[in-house]
């Protein structure tokens, strides 16, 4: 046994890290591929087998489609200055192009036509990817962090703390959240940072309830009781024993929440409450609504919103099927 291990270590040294990486890549990606040395590496194979299965399940066709959609949007967002000749300054509100025709039909200069105030539609779509992707993740992170902290505390301590926190959650649940967002957004001013904060803070209760139910499930496991009996510190039990085991449902929920955020930002912008100094797809649909004949101007931004949201949804579904098929989100 020790001889085999020594042999493997020797091989890794001679081939270097790069060779090892390529071998692992082949192992994950090619079905049924076996390294000639694998007979000697049986123990190691067994060790990584579960990882390989996880990876294979992740590569379901629909998840790949979702990944492609999100990657497409990511490429648009990252390479926006190279993909379109227009800069963001010439595409959003304070700047009004002079001499342009609003709602013009496609021309070589404007491949998808122009929208209201004669902005280039394609340019706005490409820069909109940057807005959408940047600000899709932030509210989710804020609300999930808040949810993790308060949800774990509430579920672990129980008693009075739990009652107070859950009454607060019930209170927030009794409001229609979307109407609350519409009321609060003009109150603080509709700049993008404010919108992110509003969305992040208002969705904390949802995540609190979610995390609390997860922690309750994990808390009943034997190893938590063992840790408590062994005299472990409360914080240590909470964040070292319970928290890591609630991670996979949380990771899955992030993608669904990101789809909701993209759609939500678009809806708020559609009502005219968005930050009009950024290129935003929801605002584009709002612009297109001012003219009945502007079909393309209404069609494309919605398609982009849909691609982003569906990409996140498909990715989340794929992850759920791979990690935790029984989870209902």
């Amino acid at each position, binding site marked *: 046994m020790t001889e085999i291990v020594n042999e493997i270590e020797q091989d890794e040294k001679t081939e270097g890290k790069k060779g090892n990486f390529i071998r692992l890549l082949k192992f994950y990606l090619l079905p049924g591929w076996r390294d000639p040395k694998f007979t000697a590496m049986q123990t190691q194979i067994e060790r990584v087998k579960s990882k390989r299965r996880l990876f294979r399940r992740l590569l379901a066709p629909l998840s790949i489609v979702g990944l492609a959609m999100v990657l497409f949007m990511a490429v648009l967002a990252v390479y926006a200055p190279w993909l379109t000749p227009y800069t963001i300054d010439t595409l959003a509100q304070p700047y009004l192009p002079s001499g342009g025709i609003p709602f013009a039909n496609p021309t070589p200069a404007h491949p998808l036509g122009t929208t209201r105030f004669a902005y280039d539609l394609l340019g706005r779509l490409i820069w909109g990817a940057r807005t959408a992707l940047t600000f899709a993740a932030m509210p989710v992170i804020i609300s999930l962090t808040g949810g993790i902290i308060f949800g774990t505390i509430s579920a672990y301590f129980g008693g009075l703390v739990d009652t107070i926190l859950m009454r607060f959650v019930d*209170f927030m649940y009794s*409001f229609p959240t979307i*109407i609350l967002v519409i009321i609060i957004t*003009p109150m603080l001013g509709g700049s993008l940072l404010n919108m992110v904060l509003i969305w992040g803070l208002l969705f904390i209760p949802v995540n609190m309830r979610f995390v609390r139910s997860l922690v309750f499930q994990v808390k009943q496991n034997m190893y938590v009781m063992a840790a408590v009996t062994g005299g472990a510190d409360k914080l240590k039990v909470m964040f070292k024993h319970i928290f890591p085991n609630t991670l996979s449902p949380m990771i899955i929920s992030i993608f669904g929440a990101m789809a909701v955020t993209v759609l939500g930002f678009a809806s708020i912008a559609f009502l005219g409450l968005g930050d009009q100094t950024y290129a935003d797809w929801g605002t584009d649909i709002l612009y297109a*609504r001012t003219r*009945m004949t502007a*079909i393309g101007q209404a069609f494309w931004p*919605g398609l982009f919103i*849909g691609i982003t949201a569906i990409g996140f949804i498909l990715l989340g579904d794929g992850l759920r099927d791979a990690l935790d098929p029984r989870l*209902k989100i």
Partner: protein
Amino acid sequence: MKRKSQNMIKYVIKRVLFMVPMLIMVLIFTWLLSHMMSVNPVVNKIGFTLDPAVYERELRRIGYYDPWYIQLGIYLRNFFIGNWGESYIVLPDKSVIEIIGIIFPRTIELMIFPIVIVPIIAVKLGVLSAKNKNTSKDVVIRLIAIIGAGFPVFWIATLLQRFVGIIIRNFTYGAINIEVVFSNSPSIPSPVPPGGFSTGFRIIDSFLYNDQAYLWDTLIHLLLPVISMTFVSLAGITRLTRSSMLEVMDQDYIRTARAKGVLEKDVINKHALRNALLPTSNLIIGGTASALLGSLFVEVTFNYRGFGYYMVQAIFTGDYLVINGLLVFATIIILSGTLTADVMYTIIDPRIVYR
């Protein structure tokens, strides 16, 4: 059994009593929200005026200079004696309760199809999709569901509007004027005589006063909003039914049922669906209340003068009493909706017992 129903009644009473402090907190919170609003309703009401005296008189009339606790006290007292205030801008000189009486039936008319019929269709689709897993039927159903879940509802609504209005315009030269669909114009006057009895539901009114033209006009107005609403509410239920159905089909008792020779139809409908419906029913019942309020974007797109439309109008113009009234009303609906969901849940799943 008797003890259980007694427990149930106790539970319901406890929940209803619990709603009262919740409602008061909601009232105070909404009042605070409307107090912090950045829109200036007085300017919206009287327009930009150069005469400060007019402005001043209006501020005094609505009690702007009272201390905040007196304003809040007056609002709370009036609220509980049934005076929810009068609309300031959106529908001037109508009381908020009157406004709710006018606009809420319209939203119910719009949502009645999505709430009642759609769950039935969606569960059927979900079962069909789970039964034929990974076949073409499954792919088509999942595609429809994912389009409804991923594309924003106002986009679908806008495109439908454009499609019927511009691309198939020749249709509107026929007998039925489909163009009426978008404007929601009062092209055909209501058959209710002034001062006559009206339920607020236009469909019921047209039956009461036997006016066919008004009935068809109403139905055609409802057509496009209902289609776009249906698309969206279909998505969630179908997806959830499919996934819980797939999970249940893997269970041992399904294999047992098949092994002892139960018909496939009965396996699906009796053994599997009953158990798969538990999470779905939670979504359907709990979602009904929020669906009543979720028609907001469709109403805005089609200028359908319902609950959501006036909510947005009131927020934009700063009509604070209407905002408060509608928000509190929405909260009451949501609270009673969740209570109904919890009670219904024990009927659907007898294993759940409330104490």
